[in-house]
């Protein structure tokens, strides 16, 4: 019974997702072409030495909308705990709409 309780407790503690930050810009009227980019880093033993994996998000979004503008960008940063201390990840998602430049 004790082992079962411990296993259930462990399962409860593992696999949590926490919201780190959320932001959005002004949403355009034309929402016919959604675009999305994602940055992800798996972090083992809490060791993470830089956050440069998010730097490509802007270029990824721009590449999906050549000649246009990406507006209404929702940026969401999440912390995913796969197993406490041993393995967790940070996921940054940017979703927006591609609109034609005036």
């Amino acid at each position, binding site marked *: 019974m004790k082992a079962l309780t411990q296993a259930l407790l462990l399962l409860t503690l593992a696999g949590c997702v926490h919201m*780190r*930050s959320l*932001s959005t*810009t*002004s949403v355009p009227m034309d929402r016919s072409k959604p675009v999305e980019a994602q940055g992800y880093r798996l972090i083992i*033993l*809490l*060791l*993470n*030495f*830089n*956050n440069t994996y*998010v*730097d490509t*998000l*802007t*270029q990824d*979004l*721009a*590449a999906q*909308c*050549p*000649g*246009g*503008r*990406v*507006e209404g*960008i929702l*940026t969401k*940063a999440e912390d995913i705990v796969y197993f406490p201390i041993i393995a967790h990840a*940070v996921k*940054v998602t*940017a979703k*927006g709409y*591609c609109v034609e*430049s005036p």
Partner: protein
Amino acid sequence: MLDRLPHLIAPTALSLLTGCAVMHSVQLGDIDADVVLKGKPFEIRVSEVGFDAQEAAEIAAAIAEVSGKSGDTLKDVGQVIGLFQMGPRTGKPVVDEAYSDAIIHRLRRECPAGQITGLMMVRETAEYPVVSGEIVRLVGYCRGG
């Protein structure tokens, strides 16, 4: 004291290993795709040293206990300091909270007469025991500047 050295090494090594980059928030602004794909990227980074007096007191208490002395007073000091540092925050306390205000001036210098777009603001901490680097990073693109 020397026979307790292994007990000191483990927490010290662990605390040094946790010297990591912690991201608190990231925010993207609207993007003009042509400027991003053909313009000049730039990065602005401003930072300030953070200092956690509570953590310092707790580490001092732990060292005192490992050395065979009482760390109770230091623990109490740490708890009192903790009372003054409650509330929502990112990173460790800094002396000058206006350090990030310089970003707007740096932005003007990076692209004095051009179009700026694709701005991404990242708030992060370079985390070390007791001290930290509290960083605000701005990545963007400039055309015609």
